[in-house]
C-alpha cells in the first residue's frame, strides 16, 4: 500500500509539472500582449518597455519559465499584471466564494442523482422513467448559461422571487469580513445559482446511477434478496443501490475540479464573484499570472481528486488490491 501511495504521489507531481509547463507556454502562445492594455492606441513604445521590464517579460522565454517553476515550488504565484497584488491573495477570497456555491450544489446533485437514478432504474420502462431520462439527457445537453439566463428571466424578473445576481445585496454589508456569509441575504442570493447548478450537475450522477443499477438488478444476489422476502425498498436501497454506488462515489472527487472550472459560466451569468469570474477577467486582460494560477488550481483539484477517487475505490470495494 505504501509503495503504491508513493508511486501515485510521483505520478501526481509529474502530471502537475506537465500541466504547469503546458499552461505557461499555452498562455504565451495566446494572441495578445499584456502590455497592450496600456491604453495608448499606438502602444507607446517606452511605456511598453517599462512594463516588460517590470513583469520580467523582457527576459528570454526559457529564463521566465525557470523562474516560474522555481516560484511555484515555494507556492509563489507572483504578482498580477493588472493589480500588482500577490496572485495568491487575489485567488483566496474568490476560491471561497466558488466553493460555497459549487460544493453544496455538487453534494446535492450527487445525493439526489443517486436516489432518483436508483428509483428510475427500478421503475424501468414506465412512462415516468422514460420522461425522466429524456429530461435529464436534454438538461445535460443544454448550455448552462442558457439555463441560467432562463432561470433569471423567470424567477428574478418575471416572478421576482430571487435577486438577479451577486453574492449579497450590494451596499448591505459594508464590513469586509465573514459576516455576510452568515446572513439570510446571502442564502437568498445563493438559492438560484445553487438550484440551476444542482439541476445541471444532477443529470450526470442520475444517468450514471441508473445505468449501473440496471446491471446490478440482474445480479443473483438481488434475486436472493427477493427470495428472502425482503421488502422492495430494502432490496432497492439496501442491496441494489449500495452496490451500484461505486462508480458514483469515485467520479465525485474527479469531477470536482471540472465543476470548479465550470463555475466560469454560472458565475458570469449570476455575477458571482468567484474564481470563474476572476479567470474571465484575467484572460481578457492578458493577466498571465492570475490566469495561470487559476488554471493550475483547477488542475491540482482534478489531479488530487483522481487520486482520492483511486483510494476510495479500494476502500469501497475490497476486491480491489493495490499492488
Amino acid at each position, binding site marked *: 500500500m505504501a509503495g503504491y501511495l508513493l508511486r501515485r504521489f510521483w505520478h501526481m507531481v509529474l502530471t502537475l509539472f506537465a500541466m504547469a509547463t503546458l499552461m505557461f507556454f499555452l498562455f504565451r502562445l495566446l494572441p495578445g500582449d499584456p502590455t497592450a*492594455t496600456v491604453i495608448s492606441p499606438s502602444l507607446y513604445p517606452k511605456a511598453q518597455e517599462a512594463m516588460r521590464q517590470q513583469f520580467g517579460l523582457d527576459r528570454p522565454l526559457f529564463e521566465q519559465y525557470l523562474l516560474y517553476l522555481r516560484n511555484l515550488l515555494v507556492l509563489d504565484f507572483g504578482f498580477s499584471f493588472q493589480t500588482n497584488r500577490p496572485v495568491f491573495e487575489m485567488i483566496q477570497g474568490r476560491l471561497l466564494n466558488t466553493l460555497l456555491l459549487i460544493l453544496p450544489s455538487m453534494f446535492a446533485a450527487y445525493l439526489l442523482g443517486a436516489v432518483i437514478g436508483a428509483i428510475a432504474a427500478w421503475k424501468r420502462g414506465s412512462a415516468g422513467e422514460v420522461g425522466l431520462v429524456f429530461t435529464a439527457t436534454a438538461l445535460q445537453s443544454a448550455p448552462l448559461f442558457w439555463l441560467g439566463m432562463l432561470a433569471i428571466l423567470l424567477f428574478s424578473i418575471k416572478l421576482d422571487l430571487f435577486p438577479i445576481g451577486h453574492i449579497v445585496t450590494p*451596499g448591505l454589508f459594508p464590513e469586509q469580513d465573514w459576516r455576510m456569509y452568515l446572513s439570510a441575504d446571502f442564502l437568498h442570493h445563493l438559492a438560484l445559482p445553487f438550484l440551476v447548478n444542482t439541476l445541471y450537475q444532477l443529470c450526470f450522477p442520475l444517468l450514471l446511477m441508473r445505468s449501473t443499477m440496471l446491471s446490478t438488478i440482474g445480479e443473483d444476489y438481488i434475486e436472493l434478496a427477493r427470495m428472502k422476502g425482503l421488502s422492495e425498498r430494502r432490496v432497492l436501497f439496501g442491496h441494489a443501490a449500495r452496490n451500484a454506488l461505486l462508480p458514483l462515489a469515485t467520479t465525485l472527487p474527479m469531477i470536482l475540479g471540472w465543476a470548479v472550472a465550470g463555475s466560469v459560466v454560472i458565475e458570469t451569468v449570476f455575477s458571482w464573484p468567484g474564481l470563474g469570474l476572476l479567470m474571465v477577467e484575467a484572460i481578457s486582460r492578458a493577466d498571465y499570472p492570475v490566469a495561470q494560477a487559476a488554471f493550475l488550481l483547477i488542475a491540482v483539484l482534478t489531479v488530487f481528486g483522481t487520486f482520492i477517487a483511486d483510494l476510495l475505490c479500494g476502500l469501497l470495494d475490497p476486491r480491489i488490491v493495490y499492488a
Partner: protein
Amino acid sequence: MKLATAFAGALMGLGGLLLTDTTAALAQGQPVPEIKLLTWPAAKYQHYFETSNYVAEGWRKLGLKVTLDPQPFPSPMLSKWFKEHDFDVVMSVLSGSPQRSEPDFFTNAQFNSRNSAPGDSNVGSFASAKVDELGARQLALYDAQERRKVIHELQRVLADEQPEAVIAYVVNTFAMNTAKVDIPGYEDTSDGPRSLWNMLRLTSKSGAPVRIGRTIDQGTFNPLAATIVEDFNTLSLVYDKLVELGPDGSPRMWLAQSLAVVDPTTVVVKLRQGHSFSDGKPVTADDVKFSFDYLKRWNAVYFKKYLEKLASVEIVDPETVRFTLTEAYAPFIINTLGQVPILPKHVWADVVEKTGIAKPQDFRNMPLVGSGPYVLRYWREGQEISLQRRADHFAKPASDLLIIVFGSAELVGASLKKGDIDVSFQPIVPTVVKEFAAEKNVKLIQARSNGHMSMRYNTARPALANRALRQAMAHAIPYEAIIDDVLGGDAGRSATPIVPVNAFWHDSSIPLPAYDIDKAKAILKAAGFSWGPDGALRMPAK
C-alpha cells in the same frame, strides 16, 4: 435641328473615342496597384468588418481593385497596424476616452511626419510640411483660444490632404431610472453619465447612494499600478488633479486656482486654498511636487509618456509650484496637469520602507487617502465600490455612489429595468434600445464618442501618396449606408478627426465630403487619372 446636334455630338464622341484610343498607349499611366485593406476579423468585430466591406465596395466603383485583409485582433492585427505598417489602407478604430479630447491627439500626434517610427502614431507615414508646421505651432500655444485657431486651421489642412477618410463616430446609449435619480444640468460629454462632471451631479431622490451598474471591475486603486482608462475614471473620484478636462474638451482649473505660463517652458500653478485630504491634512505645494517626482521616479507606466517633457518641479511657496519643461508643450496642461493625481506625501513618502514592499506599485493603498470629491468607503472586489461624497469638497458632489459590478451587460440592463440599479454605465446594445425606450421610468442618455473610425492610408505607397486619389476616395464611401445599415443609426459623421462632441476644438465649418461617385471620378480625371478598357483605374502619365 435636334437631330443634327445629336449627330454632330455622336461624331465628336466617336472622334474623342478614337483620339483617346490612339493616345492611350502613350499617355496612360500604370494601373493603380491593388489596395490591401487591413481590417478586423468578421466573426468578432462584425460591424468593423462590414464597414470596411462597404468602403471597399464604394472604392471599387472608381475602378480600384480592393481586397480585404482581415487579421485576428489583437495579434497580429495591432503589430501589422502600428509596428510593421503592413497595409495599404487600415480600418482604424481609435476609441474615445476623456484624455483624447486634448486636440493634439487626433491631429498632430497622428500625422506629424516626426511620428512615423514603428510603434508611433503616424502609422501611414504621412508627411506634409504644412501639417508639421501647424502641428509644431499649436504645441507652443498655451492660450486655449489662440491654440484653437491653429487647431482649426490644422483640421482644414487635414480635410484637404485626406491622410485618412473619417467615416463616423459612434453614439453610445446609457440609461437611468428617473424615479430614483436625476442629473440636474447634465453635460453633453463623450462619456455620457460616466463623465466626472455628470457623476458629480448624479442626485439620488431618496438620499440613498446612487446605484451604478457596470461590467468592469476596478483593477486597482493604486494610481502607480493602474493602466486602463476605467481604473483612472474611478481614481478621478477619489484623487484630485491640478486641472480637470472640461466637458467641452477645454481645460478647467481644479486643485489649481490659477495657472500662469511665464515663458514657453515654465508654468506656474497657484493652488486652491483650504482644501484637505480625506484624513484632514491640508493639500500643499509639497504634496504636488512630491506626486510628480514620485510617479516619475518609480516609473509609473501609464504616466511615463506624460511626464517625459517635465524637467523639474519646484516649490515657490506653500501654495505655488513652478513646472519647468524640456520644450514648449501645450498638451502638458491637459495631458499632464490634467492626469497626475495629487497624492498625500505623508502616506506615500515612506510606504516602501514601512511596508517592506519592493515598489510602490505593490502597495494595496487601503484605506485610501485622497483629496477627491468622494471618499472610498470600501471596495469588495468583483462586487461593489462604495463611495461617500465629501460635502466639504469644492466640486460639491451631489450624492453617495455605489458602483455595482455585473457579470454581463444584459444583467446590467435587466437590473435597471427591475429597479435594482439606478444608472447603467454600460452602453445599451443597439438592438434593445427600443425596448428600453418603452419603459416608463427609464430615460435614455445618448453620448457621442470622441473617438472615431476612419480609413488610414499608407502614404508610403506611391498610388496613395497621390492626394487627388485620396480626395476622390473620400467621395466614394457610402457614409449614410454605413451609419444606417451597419451601425444601426447609432453613429454620426464628422469631417475632421476632432469630432463634434469635442466642441471647443472641433471645426464645424468644414463641409462633410458627400458620397458622390461622379464627383470622385471628376476629381480623378482632373488629376490626370484615366481608366483602362477593363474599367481599371490608371495612374496619371508621368
